[in-house]
């Protein structure tokens, strides 16, 4: 930030989304937005890094030389259990989402493009495996990995082309997970063409956030949900 490297510490909570504090200026930052809400850097925005939330199996297959953080021995006993998300899903929320008619701890995948926000119910998305949509005027495709858990989103435009393309879920072909309606090419879960004229080229990724509805909606009040 402004030429300085900031290091962050856990510092508080705001409606069940945590706050962090940087050691260099003492400013407080909201985790979900990456924006400073108090202190000398109030109003500043940390540049967001694109990330994926993937299963270890999917990530290892795509990145065999990737590095995974290892448990810290003395704290390993405090790490979440395998079914922790089910337990967390039952925990009460301090944010009232009754007006939205969506349960506060329903798991969603949120996308925000050009100020327009949309959330996709995670279980429905996983069941459907692929969703075509348009958010903020941008055609996008959300696709679920073969693991049935990992989700990615891409601009539904072929590389170098401005027109939208339709994508279809296709499994058990040449290793691809979807096909486009224009070139007929197969595309991997990483969004890269496996053959044809676009071989080696990749779709532009779209950032998505997997979160509880109450947390997504707290910072995206205008968000629709499907």
């Amino acid at each position, binding site marked *: 930030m402004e030429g300085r*490297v*900031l*290091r*962050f*510490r*856990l*510092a*508080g*909570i*705001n*409606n*069940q989304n*945590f*706050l*962090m504090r940087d050691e260099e200026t*003492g400013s*407080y930052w909201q*985790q979900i937005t990456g924006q400073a*809400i*108090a*202190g000398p850097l109030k109003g500043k925005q*940390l540049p967001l*890094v*694109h*990330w*994926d*939330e*993937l*299963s*270890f*199996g999917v*990530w*290892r297959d795509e*990145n*065999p*030389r*990737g*590095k*995974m*953080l*290892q*448990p*810290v021995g003395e*704290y390993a006993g*405090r*790490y*979440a*259990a*395998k079914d*922790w998300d089910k337990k967390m899903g039952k925990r*009460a929320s*301090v*944010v009232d989402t009754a007006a939205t008619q969506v349960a506060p701890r329903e798991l969603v995948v949120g996308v925000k493009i050009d100020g327009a926000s949309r959330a996709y119910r995670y279980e429905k998305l996983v069941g459907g495996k692929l969703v075509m949509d348009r958010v903020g005027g941008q055609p996008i495709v959300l696709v679920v990995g073969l*693991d049935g*858990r*990992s989700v990615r989103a891409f601009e539904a435009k072929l590389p170098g082309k401005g027109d939208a393309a339709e994508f279809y879920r296709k499994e058990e072909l040449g290793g691809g997970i979807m096909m486009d309606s224009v070139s007929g090419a197969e595309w991997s879960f990483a969004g890269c063409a496996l053959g044809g004229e676009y071989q080696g080229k990749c779709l532009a990724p779209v950032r998505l956030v997997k979160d509880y509805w109450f947390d997504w909606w707290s910072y995206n009040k205008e968000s629709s949900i499907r």
Partner: protein
Amino acid sequence: MRTKRSGWLLGVVVVVAVLVVLAPLLILNPDRAQSAAALQLALGLKRWSPAVLALAVLSAGLLARRLRRIWGWGLAGLVVVVTVLGSFNVFEWMFAPVDRLEFAIAADLTTADPEDMLLCVKLGGESRAYPVRMMAYHHIVNDVVGGVPIVATY
């Protein structure tokens, strides 16, 4: 009269010290909603607490000395205790930070659960992953990936 006034002042100093430490803890409660105003109050108190508490300790000491009463020194001692407690980060008591990062190569992790979820980034050709079940406890990891300093959060 002088003793009475010093006594009252010392009482005020104790109350201020306790409030400065206690109020943010009460406001920033994970089981309660935070209004925008309450949040800013709590964060303001946290930011200014080191200076306020240092002043409180100094004032309490001077007032206790002026009073020359045992209870005066007791109250001054209470201010010191509150100040020490206020210096601890209760959130890091609950969720310890990861100060030393160790990584393993994906292909070498033959016994890892393939269904475990990870937060994955790729920068400068370098791929890094942070297990969600670890991040759900630590919440924050400061790291450098592909030469880019990042903070992974969950």
